[in-house]
């Protein structure tokens, strides 16, 4: 017992500190609202007394906001606050930036904060900005998850779907699922016969074939993706071949399309399907099929009723691996696909590296994570993780 604990403590401690803890804090970021609630503490307390039923908040709340903004101005948090509020209501950025710049001056002038602020920018008299502040003042927010689900809070406080031109992410999640399912099915259809052939060949032949099966795993993903672009481009070798044999009259453009994404992803992910199926098939005793046939089953019946059901755990493991790996793909679609072939991971990367919006990146990432986790758990419970084998 002591040795078991000692052996396991090193990898588990490492994973806990270097992976599970970071993962948990990342997941929390998808609801974290510290950028707003942290900068508007006094406003948050004051606005709690506002009934939100009509009009705008009173002098108290305006005063609290001016003091909060003055502080944000001093410690340089105003730009961050302005940006995060701007995600909620478009136009908040200029509103906050101007008010924060003027805040020390407004404090010096004293009463009335309400009329002075509205004089600075008449939009402070609009209800929608105040409703947004009242709604988004808490330490946690559901805003990013709603954005990820194409939902929005309307001015009357009800939740509704975004208009078709603003809706984006549900369709991208759909596309991600569709691409992943298609890639998984294509891999299965290709890998099953190959695994069967390898598993039923003499060891020497099987070993040689295995070299070809695992080749994509050992070669670089980036290089394979790039090579597919070169192969499939309009002036590429594939078109040369098709034109020479007169199969097409003019070059077909496959590079930068959905087909190219399928081809490259199936190519790269195929070993993750073939290996678990092959590993499982090797464990199926050959005399089972023989027995079925000698008892009068046709070879097809023997396969369908005996062999195929026994190979299902391997099929499940292969499908799980390919599907969850495909769900998280973004480099390959980025290189070989077009704009409309980008999957959810690409958008997570966009919101991290290009447009910095941690909350939305975290909400999209968390949704993807939960989806993957559910599939993984169902698999672990129904089939068992030990079926995931790479030899």
């Amino acid at each position, binding site marked *: 017992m002591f*040795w078991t604990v000692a052996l396991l403590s090193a990898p*588990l401690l490492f994973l806990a500190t270097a*992976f599970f803890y970071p993962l948990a804090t990342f997941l929390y970021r998808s609801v974290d609202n510290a950028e707003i609630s942290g900068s508007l503490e006094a406003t948050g307390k004051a606005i709690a007394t506002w009934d939100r039923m009509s009009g705008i908040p009173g002098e108290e709340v305006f005063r609290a906001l001016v003091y909060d903004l003055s502080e944000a101005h001093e410690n340089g948090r105003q730009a961050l606050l302005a940006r995060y509020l701007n995600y909620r209501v478009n136009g908040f950025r200029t509103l906050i930036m101007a008010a924060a710049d003027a805040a020390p001056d407004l404090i010096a002038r004293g009463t009335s904060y309400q009329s002075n602020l509205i004089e600075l920018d008449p939009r402070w008299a609009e209800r929608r900005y105040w409703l947004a502040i009242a709604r988004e003042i808490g330490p946690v927010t559901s805003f990013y998850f709603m954005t990820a689900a194409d939902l929005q809070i309307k001015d009357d406080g009800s939740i509704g779907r975004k208009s078709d031109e603003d809706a984006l992410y549900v369709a991208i999640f759909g596309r991600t699922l569709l691409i992943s399912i298609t890639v998984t099915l294509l891999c299965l259809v290709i890998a099953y016969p190959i695994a069967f052939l390898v598993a039923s060949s003499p060891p020497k032949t099987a070993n040689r074939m295995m070299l070809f099966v695992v080749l994509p795993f050992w070669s670089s993903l*980036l290089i394979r993706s790039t090579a597919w672009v070169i192969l499939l481009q309009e002036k590429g070798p594939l078109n*040369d071949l098709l034109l020479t044999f007169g199969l097409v009259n003019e070059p077909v453009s496959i590079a930068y399309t959905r087909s190219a994404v399928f081809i490259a992803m199936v190519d790269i992910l195929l070993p993750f399907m073939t290996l678990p199926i092959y590993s499982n098939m090797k464990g199926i005793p050959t005399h089972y099929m023989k027995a079925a046939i000698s008892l009068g089953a046709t070879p097809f019946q023997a396969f369908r009723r005996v062999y195929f059901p026994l190979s299902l755990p391997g099929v499940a493991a292969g499908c799980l691996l390919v599907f969850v790996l495909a769900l998280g793909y973004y480099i390959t679609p980025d290189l070989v696909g077009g704009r409309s072939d980008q999957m959810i991971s690409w958008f997570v990367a966009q919101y991290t590296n290009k447009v910095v919006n941690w909350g939305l990146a975290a909400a999209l990432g968390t949704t993807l994570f939960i989806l993957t986790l559910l599939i993984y758990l169902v698999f672990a419970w129904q089939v068992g993780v030990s079926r995931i084998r790479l030899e």
Partner: protein
Amino acid sequence: MASVVHYPGQRLLRAALWAFAIVIFSVQLAPLVVLIPLSFTSGTLLNFPIPSFSLRWYGEFFGSAQWLGSLRNTFVVGVVASTIATILGTLGAIGVLRVSPRLQPFLMALLISPMVIPLVVVALAMFLHLARLGLAASFTGLIIAHTVVCMPLVLIPVVSTLQGFDMNLFRAALSLGASPTRTFLKVVLPLIMPGVLAGWLFAFATSIDEIVVTLFVGGPEQITLPRQIYSGLRERISPTVAAVATLSTVLAISMLVVVEVLRRRSRRD
């Protein structure tokens, strides 16, 4: 395991399967094969036919401090990360097989989870964490991140090697008076060595090809080979990439052959 089932149409079926496998294997060789001739072009475009044979782009690679620097970074991170991953993964694999069968699947699922969680989530989570610790854009941070990603790839082959290991040998060594450490080093480790080495190579191959985590966690000082390739890919694919690809294919095939040899050896034992 040779098929000894005989039924009508068997030859035809196997011929069809062979034909299918050969087509698929050829298609999968194409992306590797296409880049080899292109890497020897004297021109600046990656198009066939190549104007004339030249080693120009290999010269470009070996003459560039940037490319060589990225090559060094790749190997440093790859060797260190996969070695740590191998130590942790092997300990984890032995530990997993010693716990009660009820606990085993749960532990295994936990230990290989970095492999099934979307890479972009792993990358972003690790980046935020390492940034808080002041380790973003450092080699330490990048090595930690690569170790996390590589560990499951060690665990899986080592667990399957260990499953074929006769635990009685372990008990015998202990009952003959060897200390657990000595038993591990003298009995267990030599027997599972092929699996451990294969695991190291799996991890190494993953690390030197890793791009997503590296893009998020690495800084301007931690440009690895995949990152260097990726940065140039978006605008125009330079034939230098084809030269790098050819070199990396040679490396990939050598690793593949080594692993196959190890695999056969562990089978025979």
